[in-house]
């Protein structure tokens, strides 16, 4: 038995991490949080994979923002991912900036931050690092892996890379490959960061240097629009003005939506590293699970024993329902046990992070595999 609820701890991987780019990373650290007890058979572990700007603080307060964990609705005692039953692990992804090795980490060779010397990583590399974390923890097989958005890409990759180490995979509001539109939005964000004079080719970590906060904030603002829906924006903001009765005929944040996006951008830069944003968006853009199988996604899952659950949201235009259907068709063609539903929500891509009674009931039932029906 292990201690329940350790909000963040860190492991240094015992061997170098081989990467898809051909290089390998030495001395990789992975920061993770755990909730609930690991049972004696070590077969009740659930790995939760976080999204682009998420972190290991899935069910505990964030140390920088002080906000509650990003999925407290789903994870906790008696919740759909029930920490009274399951040992929940959530690790900060490789390349991020909340304790796991990323571009802001010190390179053991140079003694300086990697910055742009950090190798370009992939979703598969992130998953490989998580598998090495589980090796360290002595967990041979996961009861389930669960993730939304980029977390769903990792969950799907887990099933493809380690089919014998995963009992079930829940993939929410996600995709098996980044589309041209997905890459396009990411490129806008990266160019905003790199156009900020403070970016300095990524070498902004030294004393007296300012981080490229303006660029990163713009990147976040552009990305944030893709997480919402047109109908949701209209309902929440419409054309309403911010703290004023008339337009100023200037370039202040006249509209509430402008003020909201600026606020999102400003808050984000306090907790996120610009270079991490470059590397993680690149990893997502490189993601295409069918690529190694001649474009045949089904081949990535041939004979898989993993149970799958796919959920999409009707107003999500970042990873629309068609992406989940593509995965479903491939899984069924491969003979896999796969469920799928498109749920209704006005909140666009962000719906997976918000309250949704149907999603909660489905995940609870899927993880229990009907035990409580």
């Amino acid at each position, binding site marked *: 038995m292990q201690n329940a609820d350790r909000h963040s701890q860190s492991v240094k991987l015992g061997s170098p991490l081989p990467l898809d780019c051909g290089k390998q990373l030495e001395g990789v650290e992975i920061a993770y949080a755990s909730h609930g007890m690991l049972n004696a058979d070590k077969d009740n572990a659930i790995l939760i994979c976080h999204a682009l700007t998420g972190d290991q603080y899935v069910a505990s307060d964030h140390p920088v923002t002080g906000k509650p964990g990003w999925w407290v609705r789903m994870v906790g005692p008696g919740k759909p991912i029930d920490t009274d039953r399951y040992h929940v692990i959530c690790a900060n992804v490789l390349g991020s900036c909340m304790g796991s090795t990323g571009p802001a980490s010190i390179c053991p060779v140079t003694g300086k931050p990697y910055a742009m010397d950090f190798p370009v990583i992939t979703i598969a590399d992130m998953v490989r690092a998580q598998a090495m974390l589980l090796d360290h923890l002595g967990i041979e097989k996961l009861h389930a892996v669960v993730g939304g958005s980029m977390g769903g890409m990792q969950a799907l990759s887990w099933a493809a890379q380690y089919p014998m180490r995963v009992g079930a995979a829940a993939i929410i509001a996600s995709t098996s490959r980044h589309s041209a539109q997905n890459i396009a939005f990411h490129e806008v964000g990266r160019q905003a960061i790199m156009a900020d004079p403070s970016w300095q080719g990524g070498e902004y970590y030294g004393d007296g240097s300012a981080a490229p906060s303006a660029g990163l904030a713009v990147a976040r603002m552009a990305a944030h629009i893709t997480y919402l829906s047109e109908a949701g924006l209209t309902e929440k903001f419409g054309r309403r003005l911010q703290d004023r009765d008339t337009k100023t005929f200037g370039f202040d944040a006249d509209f509430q939506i402008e003020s909201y996006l600026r606020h999102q951008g400003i808050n984000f830069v306090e907790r996120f590293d610009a270079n991490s944003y470059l590397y993680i968006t690149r990893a997502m853009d490189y993601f295409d699970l069918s690529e190694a199988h001649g474009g045949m996604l089904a081949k990535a899952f041939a004979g898989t024993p993993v149970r799958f659950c796919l959920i999409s949201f009707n107003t999500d235009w970042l990873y629309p329902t068609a992406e989940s259907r593509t995965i479903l*068709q491939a899984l*069924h063609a491969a003979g896999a046990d796969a469920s*799928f*539903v498109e749920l209704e929500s006005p909140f666009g891509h962000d719906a997976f992070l918000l309250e949704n009674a*149907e999603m909660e009931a489905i995940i609870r039932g899927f993880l229990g*595999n009907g035990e*409580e*029906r």
Partner: protein
Amino acid sequence: MTSLRPDQKIIAAHVADGARVLDIGCGSGVLMQELVETRGADVLGMEINPAKVAAAMARGLSVAQGDALKDLVHYPDQSFDYVILSQTLQAVKRPDLVLDELVRIGRQAFVSFPNFAHWRVRLSLLMGGRMPVTRLLPEQWYDTPNIHHVTVDDFRALIRDKGLVQDGQWFLSGDTQTGRGAANLMAEHAVFLLRG
């Protein structure tokens, strides 16, 4: 939990233990659950209504939201021991095309439907001069999901035209089975087991 309909009971009684089954139009999974629990079957469901899909998934059943006419094409040939289409044939846009898919992806296919030539339906139309509204067909002509009313003899003609093999046929009047001789007149409900 809702109990099985009479046609579902017949289907459940004739599915072999441990079979791999696709239940099309599975609703919230009543028949699926029966097959899992009593037959140890490996069952996948398909359902068009997302609320019903969510209800079945919340029970831990494997269900994919989908449309028989559009989504069956993605399954490989003979990938299931049985494909079940219960009370759904009369509600799809092209029953003939769906039937082709059933016998392609399933080694055997159960098809059940309400018989529009049952004497009570005939009498209702003959005497009333209006589209029949009966116990098994309770909707009005304008809001019925049953867009292709079909009779036992119509269905027999279709499977003959398609050259399909009949491995079984059962006819129901209420909860009890009736003979096959006068089925087109006496059966409220028909269940066929077919092979391509």
